[in-house]
């Protein structure tokens, strides 16, 4: 589990939150040790954003207990707010203010002195590659620049605990890598970080530990490797020459697998978990040949988080905006 004896920097016990008849959180448990990065992974509507909103005092839970930095998210809400930074998927910057004005404003609202807020803003604008754009209104910024400004704003008071809600959703690959860079740097500085994401490779790359949640509950926690091990060893993956063969290919592969077969139409690919995959592959290829299925490519590989997700939840992680919460 987490580090010995010390209290976790972020803690949730049996969190419940309902919106009308929808149950967004259904007894969520979560623990993040100080100085570590937790990736909160889950499909649309799993409750990721709701959890972040409770930790950041934007919502009150209906039941259960949540605390950050040892402070209760409901009772000590105001003191807690001084210990956290929040950057969201909406890039909450004021478009009519310049980058610098945005940062100084947030700094002042964190109750920094004017001089401290200005000095820290200058430092962050440099670090985040926004120095040249510092005196332009945020309206003129690209999507990637806005996200960086949003993240910088959440860091202005150097809070020990940071919440990032889908920090790279909707960014182009280059901007995403730039964000990863900044987040890795934070991790190196020892900030406690909880980030939600729908991108499995993002959690794999940035997080020390990953919590998979589905339908408002934690269904698995561990390092990326531990989770992959849970899914079982190797995976067999075959790419078909013809899309029309996919259904038959799935049925042909299934008996050779330890779990469900996964069929991806777009990629013309069938795959699934199979211990000692290399040995079984021979039989698979023989069966495919007998069935008249033409194979374009075949591989035996270690599982990805996509596979973890599929085997834990029974469905594939979907991309797109999280439902209203």
């Amino acid at each position: 589990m987490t580090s010995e004896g010390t209290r976790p920097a972020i803690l949730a016990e049996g969190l419940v939150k309902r919106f009308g008849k929808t149950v967004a959180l259904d007894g969520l448990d979560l623990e993040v040790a100080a100085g570590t990065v937790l990736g909160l992974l889950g499909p649309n509507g799993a409750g990721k954003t709701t959890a972040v909103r409770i930790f950041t005092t934007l919502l009150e839970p209906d039941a259960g207990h949540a605390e950050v930095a040892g402070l209760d998210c409901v009772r000590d809400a105001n003191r807690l707010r001084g210990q956290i930074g929040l950057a969201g998927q909406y890039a909450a910057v004021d478009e009519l203010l310049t980058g610098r004005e945005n940062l100084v404003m947030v700094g002042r609202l964190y109750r920094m002195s004017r001089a401290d807020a200005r000095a820290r803003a200058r430092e962050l604008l440099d670090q985040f590659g926004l120095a040249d754009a510092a005196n332009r209104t945020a309206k003129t910024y690209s999507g990637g620049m806005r996200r960086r400004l949003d993240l910088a704003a959440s860091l202005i008071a150097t809070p020990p605990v940071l919440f990032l809600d889908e920090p790279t959703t909707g960014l182009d690959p280059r901007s995403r890598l730039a964000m990863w860079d900044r987040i890795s740097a934070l991790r190196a500085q020892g900030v406690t970080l909880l980030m939600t994401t729908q991108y499995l490779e993002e959690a794999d790359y940035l997080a020390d530990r990953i919590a998979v949640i589905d339908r408002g509950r934690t269904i698995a926690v561990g390092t990326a490797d531990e989770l992959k091990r849970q899914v079982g060893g190797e995976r067999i993956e075959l790419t078909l020459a013809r899309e029309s063969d996919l259904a038959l290919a799935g049925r042909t592969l299934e008996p050779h697998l330890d779990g469900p077969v996964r069929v991806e139409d777009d990629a013309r690919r069938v795959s699934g978990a199979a211990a000692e995959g290399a040995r079984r592959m021979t039989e698979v290829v023989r069966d495919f040949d007998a069935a008249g299925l033409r194979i374009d490519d075949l591989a035996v590989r270690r599982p990805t988080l996509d596979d973890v997700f599929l085997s834990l939840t029974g469905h594939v992680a979907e991309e797109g905006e999280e439902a209203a919460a």
Partner: protein
Amino acid sequence: MNAERHGWLYWQISDAAVLTVRALRHIPRNPAVLVFSTIQPVMFVVLFRYVLGGAIKLPPGVSYVNFLMAGVFVNTVAFGSFTTGVGLAEDLQKGLIDRFRSLPMSRAAVLIGRTLSDLVRNFFTGAIMFGVGVIVGFNPQGGALEVLAGVGLLLLLGFVFSWIGATIGLAVKNVEAVQSAGLIWIFPLIFASSAFVPTSTMPAGLRAFANNQPITHVVDAVRGWFLGTPVGSHAWISIVWCLGILVVFVALAVRVYRRAAASS
């Protein structure tokens, strides 16, 4: 962090000042708002002064343009409350309110910042409308102190209505809906009042409503001060109305703000 160095009140004022400066910076950077908040009242001036005014019967001794302008000023600051609501609905939609609510800051500062900056904007649109009035023949006869009192009451009304706008903006969370909602409550109040026509020709029931609702009191007080005619009890009744509405809507707006969640 130096939160401990100052007291609670210091930070309430500091937060409100930071957010007022923020909203004031929006005014020159988004001139469309200022332009659009003067277009409607200018159209009203033209419509009532030149199209409808000739057919409106007034007691002898008052020209219609002099009668009209007090109503135009009240109409201008009343519709100015749209801007407050629209601004807050936008802040909500863009996630800025989430950011502010996650900060260790005053719960009222965002609202105070918006309403105070809209007070300043109301002053500018009001000044523009004063100029427009003079161009079409408005000729206030009141003394300097009386005109000042009239301006003060107009700004108070604008500030009070901004808090109503703020409450609506945070409650409906949608820019277009804020505008429709604004029309629903402002139009009847303005037209069933002495803003553009004397209430004496209205049917009895409507006249009773018109004579006793706050807009009529404010219009009559402002009109009296600007034209140098007796104001009577309209002044203090207006102020009591304004302060009463202010207390209710400050409480309501802060309450809605605390619960406001982005509608994503």
